[in-house]
């Protein structure tokens, strides 16, 4: 018998309170704002896929959705972590209405793809972190695991929306429980779809590049990228890259 992997099709009172409370907290700490740059808020069924460095990531992302969308959008979380104790399971399922999947599985009943598909077939949307774990490296984004490809092959009508979560790894780094107040934005990009005949790896790499390109402030120094010093002459291209956010910004008086 197929087990239902979300507790109810609408939010319970506890889930609504948690969701409103966490969204308000996310705003108070990070002033979080959505930047819709290539997609718009919509009632369509979607898989939001995002970079992952902190437990706060999905709170920030859902704080950017409308209350109605939040009630039918579920984060996919690792059962190895969130199913470990009764308290964690209560937080993950009864408060946050997450979908728990096993990254290592043997039993077919634990097949993560079938579990996620069963949630999609309820008409719900998902928040997925295709890196598969919180990224603790200096890399901006780890290679994607296959779930995104498999889900999209099975349900091609579901829109895949890349979401770049800015700064959350600095607000609440792995292993920390008290957040530092820093401003965060979530950039929602244009939907990605598997091209006809596109290979698994090629698609996953392309999806990863699309997500990376949404970062409004790519790292200037450090290991990954050569440093390009910005001068006022470069300001225009910089503003362009930063997306609608800065382009529609006010003409400052400074």
């Amino acid at each position, binding site marked *: 018998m197929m087990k239902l992997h979300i507790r109810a099709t609408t939010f319970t009172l506890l889930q609504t309170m948690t969701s409103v409370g966490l969204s308000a907290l996310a705003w108070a700490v990070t*002033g979080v*704002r959505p930047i819709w740059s290539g997609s718009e808020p919509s009632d369509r069924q979607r898989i939001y896929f995002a970079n992952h460095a902190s437990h706060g990531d999905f709170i920030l992302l859902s704080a950017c959705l409308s209350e109605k969308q939040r009630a039918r959008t579920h984060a996919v979380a690792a059962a190895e972590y969130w199913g470990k104790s009764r308290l964690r399971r209560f937080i993950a399922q009864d408060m946050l209405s997450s979908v728990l999947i096993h990254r290592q599985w043997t039993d077919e009943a634990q097949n993560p793809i079938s579990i996620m598909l069963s949630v999609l077939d309820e008409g719900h949307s998902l928040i997925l972190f295709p890196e598969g774990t919180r990224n603790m490296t200096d890399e901006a984004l780890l290679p994607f695991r296959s779930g995104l490809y498999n889900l999209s092959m099975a349900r091609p009508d579901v829109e895949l929306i890349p979401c770049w979560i800015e700064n959350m790894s600095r607000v609440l780094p792995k292993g920390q429980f008290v957040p530092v107040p*820093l401003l965060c934005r979530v950039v929602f990009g244009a939907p990605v779809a598997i091209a006809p005949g596109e290979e698994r790896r090629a698609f996953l790499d392309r999806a990863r590049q699309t997500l990376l390109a949404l970062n409004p*402030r790519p790292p200037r120094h450090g290991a990954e990228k050569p440093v390009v010093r910005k001068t006022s002459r470069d300001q225009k291209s910089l*503003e362009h890259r930063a997306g609608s956010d800065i382009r529609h*910004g006010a003409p*400052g008086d*400074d």
Partner: protein
Amino acid sequence: MPMRETLILVIGLTAVLTIANLIAGILSWRAPKPLSSALVNLNERINAWWVMVLAITVAMFLGRRAMTILFALISFAALREFVTLTHNRRSDHWVLLGMFGIIIPFQYWLVWTAWYGLFTIFIPVYCFLLMPAITALHGDTERFLERVSAQQWAVMISVYCVSHVPALLTLELPGFEGRNLLLIAFLIITVQGSDVLQYIFGKLFGRHLLSPAVSPSKTWEGLIGGLAAASLLGALLSFLTPFSPLQAAGVAFIACLMGFLGGLVASAIKRDQGVKDWGHLIEGHGGMMDRADSLVFAAPVFFHTVRYFWT
């Protein structure tokens, strides 16, 4: 709470903003639709001014405690914008938490209790020495000096300097007892007024760029016209202060000159970090620091000028 002066201020500011609304309304009405981004921005800015004037007026009526809390919140918003822009690493987590959770509350507690001796040295001496020590104890030396300097700057600018505004309430000025809130009104109106006047003079008469590498819109004409007009405004507002009209013009001139320099420095930081605004807290203006940058530089100098010559 001096009622007569406060009422004059509320009426005056309401009149100025209403006139601004009327002018912007006529401009918008006559302009081709859809409105240009400059006009949309002008309307947003004026609306945000209403909110800012309302917030400060309410704090004026509620008194010293509310004013201190209001500026602690302004420090919080400014510090958040500052730290967001700067480079920091995972090992800085506790230092950053301390900046928000310890330094802001403690500095404003010192303001509240009027402990002048510690208020002036807590951040420049104790935080200055202890913050890098904590960072060093964490053992992460990568880009150490850059991280530590940025943290120092963040607390100096957004906490230390800003806290000098409510600290005006602790000054004991002979013959001016119970009226210190008006000094805050004088400082904010002249310095923020100077920003607006510099903007207007720059738009009307601006020809010669003052520092094109730092800011594309600051001109000599804007600076000179704005400072002159703001000094005149200061003289007109001398009834709020213990100063004579001439002294008020002089003090306003110094504060507004510092305010101009603050705006210039803030612009240079933004250019260096490759952003146009500090944040998005205030519709049409940008972030808290976009609005407060001039006040940040003006407040400590204004505070010490008043403290030296009038107490």
